[in-house]
């Protein structure tokens, strides 16, 4: 038998499918299925969140308060005359139906922001207080955060964030921030960024609380109106990073006040003496 060299030209070992088609099919499957799971879990979160007992909410919130400090770039101040004032103002704005005890955290930080963390925690920074000119506008911001607490937006965000984080680590092998603290990363990614409809609901709930407290909504939106005029002011962008600002936010509130017969005119309540020091 003699050896006759013969070239093999067909490629039986390589699938004919183009790599990009293959990727598209895979992505389609994976994205489709994860989207379905994400939506299903989102619905589950929405169904579960209103039923979470206050003790559980407090446990979740208390464990994430340290990462919230980090996020707002500050350390809590213990002895400051403004704390008791802020705490009292916060308590007076709480809806009588809400039972959760409120804790005010006053942070020394250059970042202008206020935030609410599950478990009745409300955080305010020193830089934020420097921007505030009257009690009415301060009350509105605090009441807005209370609105988030009331609607449990933080818990919702936490639930969805956990799902997102899990999916991310499944595909890429590490958690989003490359950090060991899953909860910390979750808070970082999502819990302080609420959807537009969540913001509107918190706005409305906030204005309602202000009306309950002062009998009118006058001057409560002054901060927003001022910021609208000087939107380029870099110092205040952090607040609107977590609270997307749109021009019709004020308009929407005024329209709602009109609908509910709330007066948007009234006397300005000054900030107490400790602020002018």
């Amino acid at each position: 038998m003699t050896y006759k060299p013969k070239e093999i030209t067909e490629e039986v070992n390589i699938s004919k499918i183009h790599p990009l088609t293959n990727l598209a099919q895979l992505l389609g499957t994976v994205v489709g299925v994860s989207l379905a799971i994400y939506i299903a879990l989102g619905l589950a979160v929405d169904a579960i969140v209103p039923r979470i007992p206050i003790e559980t909410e407090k446990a979740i919130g208390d464990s994430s308060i340290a990462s919230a400090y980090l996020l707002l770039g500050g350390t809590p101040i213990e002895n400051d005359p403004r704390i008791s004032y802020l705490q009292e103002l916060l308590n007076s704005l709480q809806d009588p139906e809400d039972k959760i005890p409120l804790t005010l955290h006053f942070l020394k930080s250059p970042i202008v922001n206020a935030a609410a963390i599950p478990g009745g925690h409300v955080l305010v920074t020193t830089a934020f207080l420097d921007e505030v000119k009257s009690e009415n506008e301060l009350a509105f911001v605090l009441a807005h955060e209370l609105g988030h607490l009331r609607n449990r937006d933080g818990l919702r965000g936490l639930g969805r964030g956990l799902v997102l984080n899990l999916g991310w680590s499944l595909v890429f092998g590490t958690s989003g921030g490359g950090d060991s603290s899953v909860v910390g990363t979750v808070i970082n990614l999502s819990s302080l960024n609420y959807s537009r409809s969540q913001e509107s609901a918190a706005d409305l709930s906030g204005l309602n609380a202000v009306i309950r407290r002062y009998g009118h909504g006058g001057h409560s939106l002054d901060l927003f109106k001022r910021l609208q005029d000087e939107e380029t002011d870099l110092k205040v962008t952090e607040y609107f990073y977590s609270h997307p600002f749109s021009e019709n936010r004020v308009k929407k509130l005024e329209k709602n006040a009109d609908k509910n017969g709330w007066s948007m005119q009234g006397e300005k309540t000054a900030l107490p003496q400790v602020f002018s020091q």
Partner: protein
Amino acid sequence: MEDLIFILSPFFVIGFGYLIGAYFEKQHYESIRKRERQTLHLPVVNYGCKQPLPEAREARLVVGEVVISPDAFKTFVLALRNLVGGRVTVYETLLDRARRESLLRLKEEAIAWGATQVLNVRYETATIGNSSQQGVASLEVIVYGTAIR
């Protein structure tokens, strides 16, 4: 904005991996096909234990080795495939290239030595550099046989 860049950065790497990886693969296949034609004349034959071996004056061991690494695109597709299961078609070219390239190196070595035949060729594979997390393992193929002249 920074968050967006952070989230999108793996996709830049994957896109880069695809473009560069596909280019190198095309080049490699062109080289493989050309050299396969050039080395076609050398018989590579396996003999069973009851078959008489051909006459030879000299014999020596010839070895061909190759290590091929997947690109970021292939690794990403593999990660997706790991979720749903099934054939990893993008890795087929990798294995195919490694197998053919290693045999080519063996045959080129044998031809340079002046071999008339290569007997009883065997393949071995291994993964090297299997770094625990990212799954960027390289594929190693070793092929060896007995060249005679």
